[in-house]
C-alpha cells in the first residue's frame, strides 16, 4: 500500500520505471499489504476430449485498493484467462481468489452473480453492449438490478454517460454509436455502480488511435479518482500508464514491473 500511495502522491511527475525480478519473496511483500484481491495458486486447465491444456500454472498475485494493473503477454500466454478467473467470470480448476479477504471458492453461481453486480465492473474488447437497449438503458440495467428505483438508476446512468462525454447520446442504440462511443458506454456501465474493481479486457483492441487514447485518458482519470483497474492490453504505450505491469508467458507471471509516476 505504501508503494501505491507513494506512487499516487507522485502522480503528475515524470515516470520512473523500476523492474523487479519476479520471485516468491516479491509475493510475500505484496501479500503482506492489505490486498483487495488475492489470487492463490491459481490453476486453469481446459479439456478438449482427452487433451488437457493447462493455461494457468499456479499463479499467486495480489492487487491493492486503488491500483492500476496492466497485464501483458503474447497471445495464448494466459493473461485474459487470468483476468476472467480473477473477475469471477470463470471458475478456476484449482486455487482460490480472495476478495477483501473472503474466499470465492465456495460461492454458488447465484452468489457470484451478486458479487459481480456489486463489486466488479467489466469492459470487454467488443464493448458487450446489449443491442436492444439504448445507451442509458445499458448503463441503468445493472443499477436497476441493484434494486434502485428507476429515476435514481437513470439519473446515475445519465451522470456516468455524461462523465464519458456521451450526454448527447443517451437514447441511441449501440448500433447508432461509433466503436469509441460504444466502448465509453461500456465503461459508463462498468463504473456507474461504483465497483471496487474495474476489469478491462483489451479495451482498445478494436479502436482507432484517437478513440484508444480517449479511452485510456478515461482510465487514467478514473484511476486518479481512486478506482482500482485491472486491464489486459497488448499495447505497451497504454500499459505504461499503469502502476504495475504484469507480464505473462506460458501460463505464468514472468515479471512484475513497478512503475512510479513522478
Amino acid at each position, binding site marked *: 500500500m505504501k508503494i501505491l500511495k507513494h506512487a499516487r502522491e507522485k502522480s503528475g511527475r515524470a515516470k520512473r520505471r523500476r523492474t523487479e525480478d519476479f520471485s516468491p519473496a516479491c509475493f510475500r511483500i505484496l501479500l503482506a499489504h492489505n490486498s483487495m484481491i488475492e489470487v492463490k495458486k491459481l490453476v486453469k486447465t481446459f479439456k478438449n476430449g482427452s487433451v488437457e491444456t493447462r493455461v494457468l500454472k499456479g499463479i499467486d498475485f495480489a492487487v491493492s485498493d486503488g491500483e492500476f494493473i496492466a497485464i501483458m503477454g503474447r497471445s495464448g500466454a494466459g493473461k485474459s484467462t487470468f483476468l*476472467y478467473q480473477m473477475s469471477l*467470470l*470463470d471458475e478456476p480448476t484449482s486455487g482460490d481468489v480472495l476478495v477483501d479477504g473472503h474466499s470465492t471458492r465456495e460461492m454458488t*453461481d*447465484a452468489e457470484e*452473480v*451478486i458479487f*459481480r*453486480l*456489486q463489486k*466488479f465492473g*467489466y469492459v*470487454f474488447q467488443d464493448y*458487450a*453492449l*446489449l*443491442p*436492444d*437497449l439504448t445507451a442509458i*438503458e445499458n448503463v441503468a*440495467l*445493472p443499477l*436497476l*438490478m441493484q*434494486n434502485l428505483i428507476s429515476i435514481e438508476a437513470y439519473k446515475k446512468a445519465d451522470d456516468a454517460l455524461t462523465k464519458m462525454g456521451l450526454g448527447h447520446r443517451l437514447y441511441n*442504440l449501440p448500433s447508432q454509436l461509433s466503436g469509441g462511443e460504444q466502448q465509453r458506454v461500456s465503461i459508463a*456501465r*462498468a463504473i456507474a455502480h461504483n465497483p471496487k474493481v474495474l476489469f478491462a479486457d483489451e479495451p482498445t483492441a478494436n479502436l482507432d488511435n484517437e478513440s484508444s487514447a480517449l479511452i485510456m485518458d478515461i482510465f487514467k482519470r478514473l484511476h486518479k479518482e481512486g478506482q482500482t483497474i485491472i486491464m489486459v492490453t497488448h499495447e505497451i504505450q497504454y500499459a505504461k500508464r499503469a502502476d504495475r505491469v504484469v507480464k505473462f508467458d506460458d501460463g505464468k507471471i514472468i515479471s512484475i514491473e513497478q512503475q512510479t509516476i513522478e
Partner: protein
Amino acid sequence: MASFLTIRIGFFLAIRQVHRASIWTTSLIIFVMVLTFLNLVVVSGILVGLIQGAVDQARFEFTSDVIISAPDDKQYIENSPNLLALMRSFPEVQAVSGRYGSGAVLEANYKTRKETEKRNTANAQIFGIDPAQEDAVTHLSESVTEGDYLLPTDYDQVIIGQFLLSQYVPVDDPNFAALDNVGVGSKIRITVGDVTREVTVKGIIKSKVDALTRNMFMVDSQFRSMIGRNDGNVAQISVLLRPGTDPALVRDKLKQSGVDGYAKVQTYVDAQPQFLKDIINTFNMLGTVFSSMGLVVASITIFIVVFINAITRRKYIGIMKGIGIDGSAIRMSYVFQSAFYALLGSAIGLLLVYGFLVPFIDEHPIDFPFSDGILVAPVDETLFRVGLLVFSTIIAGYIPAWMIIRKNTLDSILGRN
C-alpha cells in the same frame, strides 16, 4: 423463485426486446399464435357446432323446448284437452301444439300402374296438426319450400317430407322406400289402419330434421276422421317456452303436477336419441384431441422461436450474467415475451372469433349434409383454452431460456461451446 426484482428486470428486458425486435418476426410469431388459437377454438367449435346445429334445428323445427308424448304402451295421451289447457295456463309457455299421429302407408302412381308392376309405396308417420298452432310452435310453414303450407280449411291435402319423394333422396336406400314422380299437386293414397284416402300434395317440406323430412302432415280434423278419434287425445304436445325459460323447470313442474303418470315429459335434450348424444360426446372428444394437438403444435412453435432467439442471443445472455443480471430475471424476460405473444395472439383470435366468425356463421350456417353447422364457442370454455394456451406457451418459452441461461457465463460471452 421469482422475486419482485427479477420480475421487474424481466419485464424491463422483455418490453425492450419485443419493442425493438423486427416487426416482421413479431408479426409472424403473433400470426402463428392466432392460428393456434383458432385451431384450438374453431376446429373443436365447428365439430361441436355441427351437432349443435342438428340439435338446435330439431328443437326449433320439431320438438320445441318441451315435448310431451304418449307412453310407450299407448298411442295417445290421456286427458289431452285438459293437459293442453293446463299448459296454456303456465306463464312460462308461449305456444302449444298438439299432434295426432299414426303410422301410414303412402302409395303413388296407383292410377297408371300396370297389374304386373310393383306398387309404389312408402311408410311414414302422419301427423294431424292445427296448422296455426303448429306454426306458432315449430315454424313449420318456413320449412315448406315448394307449394304451400296447410290452412285449417284444407280438405284432403297434405304436406310431405322431401325424403319420402324419390327425386329428393340423394342415394337409393333399401331401408327407406320413396314415392316416384310425386310433386306439388300430385295425388297419393294414404292408408291408416283400414281407412284409405286419396289426398293431394299441397307442399313439400325441406329440412335437415328427419322428423319432418320422412313424415307427412295434414289438418287435424281430417286426420281425426281417418283414425276415428273424437276424444281430443293427441299423441304429442310440443311446447314453446318464453325466451330465457329453462325447459327443465317446466318439465319438473309438469312432473310435479303428475303429468308423468300418463305421459312422457321431456325437454328437447331428454328427447334426443341416444345415437345423437353419443355423436355429441364423440365430437367433443375429437374436439379435445384436435385442441390438444393444436396446443402441442403451439408449444413446439414457441419452444423453437424462443430457443432460436435465446441461441442467437446467447452472447448477450452471457454478458447480462457477467455484469450481474440474475439468471432468473433473464428467464423471466423470456417468460414475459412468450406470454406477450400468446396473449396478443389470443386477443386477436378472440376478436376474430366473437367479432366475426361466430356472428357470421350464425348468419350463414355451414351447410353440412345433416345440419346447418354453427360455431360453438362458449366464453368460459374459450377463456379456459386461452389460459391453457398462455400456460403452455410460457412453459415452452421458459424451458429453452433455462437451457441456454444455465450455460457457463464466460463460454456464452466468448461464444465457446
